[in-house]
């Protein structure tokens, strides 16, 4: 990541070199007895922390205006703090020496730029979070992520189901959509595991942009996905299921004879909802035998 920021880093190094040469040429070294070591310690730590910020930004952030603001802001701070540290060792003659202007002027601008950068970062986080809805509900736990599709896995679904069943009001139907990729094993076998993995990722992306933000899509395992649709009646879930089934072949030309098979289920009314574990095994049985699950007599 840091290579992307190489030009900015080089610029900062050049500026620091200029600062050092100025300090060396304009100032006179102080005698050792005149150096306040506590000040040196405090200023050095501040400088190091600012360098640490720069390191973090450079190591973890991709290029973009937010990163530029953050790098420029920390750069100015580092410049300021570095000259500050230098003047503990060098004495400048005169009250309004140009060096003291060079030293104190950049700091406020740096702070300003940092503030703008952090504000931009927060907005960016909000957008990223919006991208995550549909993949994530109330819980964030990276250990439950499926590393391939970046959807949450079966265990997360179980947590989400537990929560939905607990909070559900009697007049709010909770729908579930089981999405199976039919013929996936054959596709995987013919085209190789890498192509199979790519297809799964594409299917996950394709389904994600077709669902409402309040729904949650999880990878159940293998070639099966499960969508959780809170406050959605069966008719609506079934409509989505039909939509996904019919649109799939047109959207994926190279999927050969893979098709999506979606089945919708609902838990509604006053009926006592089944425990999530039961629900999952009912779904599993249903998917294998194509019978309607027990808990949905409708």
């Amino acid at each position, binding site marked *: 990541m840091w290579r992307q920021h190489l030009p900015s880093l080089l610029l900062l190094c050049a500026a620091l070199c200029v600062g050092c040469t100025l300090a060396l040429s304009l100032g006179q070294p102080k005698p050792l007895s005149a150096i306040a070591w506590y000040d040196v310690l405090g200023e050095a730590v501040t400088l190091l922390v600012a360098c640490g910020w720069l390191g973090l930004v450079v190591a973890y952030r991709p290029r973009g205006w937010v990163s530029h603001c953050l790098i420029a802001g920390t750069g100015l701070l580092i410049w300021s703090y570095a000259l500050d540290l230098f003047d503990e060792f060098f004495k400048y003659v005169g009250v309004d020496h140009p060096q003291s202007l060079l030293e104190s002027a950049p700091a406020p601008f740096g702070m300003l730029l940092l503030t703008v950068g952090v504000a931009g970062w927060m907005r960016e986080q909000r957008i990223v979070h919006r991208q995550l809805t549909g993949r994530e509900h109330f819980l964030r736990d990276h250990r439950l992520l499926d590393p391939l599709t970046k959807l949450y896995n079966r265990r997360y679904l179980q947590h989400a189901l537990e929560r939905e069943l607990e909070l559900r009001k009697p007049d709010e139907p909770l729908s579930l959509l089981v999405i199976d990729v039919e013929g996936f094993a054959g596709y995987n*076998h013919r085209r190789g*595991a890498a192509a199979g993995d790519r297809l799964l990722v594409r299917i996950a992306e394709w389904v994600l942009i077709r669902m409402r933000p309040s729904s949650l899509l999880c990878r159940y*395992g*293998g070639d099966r996905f499960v969508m959780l649709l809170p406050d959605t009646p069966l008719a609506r879930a079934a409509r989505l299921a039909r939509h996904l089934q019919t649109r799939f072949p047109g959207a994926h030309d190279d999927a050969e004879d893979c098709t999506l098979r979606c089945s919708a289920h609902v838990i509604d009314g006053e009926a006592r909802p089944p425990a999530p574990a039961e629900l999952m095994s009912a779904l599993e049985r249903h998917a294998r035998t194509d019978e309607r699950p027990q808990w949905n007599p409708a």
Partner: protein
Amino acid sequence: MTAPFDSEDKCLWLASSCQDLIALCLRRDADLNRLLSGTRIFPANLAVEHHRIAARDWLNLVRNCRRQVPVDDLAFMTADAMLANRDHAFLQMLQCAPDLGSALRAWHRHRAGFLPLVQVSPAGSDRDLSLHLRPAIGLQGQDAFVTELTVSLLIGLVRHQLDDATSGISIELTTQRPADIESYRLHWRIEPSFDAPVNRVRIAYPLLFRPFAGSDAQRFAQLQAGLRALSRHSGRRIGLLEFLRRRMRRALPQLLGLEQAAAALSMSGSSLKRLLKQHGVSYGELIDEVRSELAWTLLREQRWSNPRVAERLGYANEHNFRRAFKRWTGRPPSAVLAP
């Protein structure tokens, strides 16, 4: 006689399966350097054709992969990837066999060069063929992965070639029943039973004779000839534990002594003891294992009486046999005679 296959020995199969495994993990965001750390495999080796990898390095790689990609279906996915890999001569050969029976025979014939980690021993009963899966060398804690991989290869073969006809197959695993068994159901379409005395796959006889969808007699013969040539070149070596088990079983009802077994391997008794310790077993455990497996088969499949089994296993009397059997399985012999 060639020496048996040991952890430090290299094998072609391990290399090609490790490529599939690594590619799979890399697609799941694993870091190549971490996958290869401590394995003596270098990224440059992976590109070399016919590069061989030692069993110990392969097992270390599996351990790293499981750490880096902590999903519960890694073994199943690896098996799928390997079956789909056209460069995998051994598995391609199995897939163009005329039927499952021939495929299993070919598997057994070529196992030495291509699947040296597991001993697959067949035993027949009047209803089905049962395949016992045991580690052929010490598997350094990766026993469950290797077993799942082997069973997945078998199930994958059946699913692709016999159109998902997995109903004639049942699976027993020695592992504890995990909290979540959905991966087994999703990938195998079979619910295995757990806490079994031995890893075992049972296949109903009719399934063995149903023709494979991808059957191709000419290619089957070609690939077999190729594999034969390859294994002649690299030596046909079965795993150390498999070697010892076979010797012990052949010696029954006499018990094969440690010194005798060591002599067959041209080493001293204490070296053999030390070697076995590296593989995680003791000589006595190995003998017990062979006896208990044979007892189990004779009682359950052949319906022999207790005194006859005791005699066959080299026990002085029936009483000693019953006590030993109870020690192995926790149950008396009469309890395993299921209706």
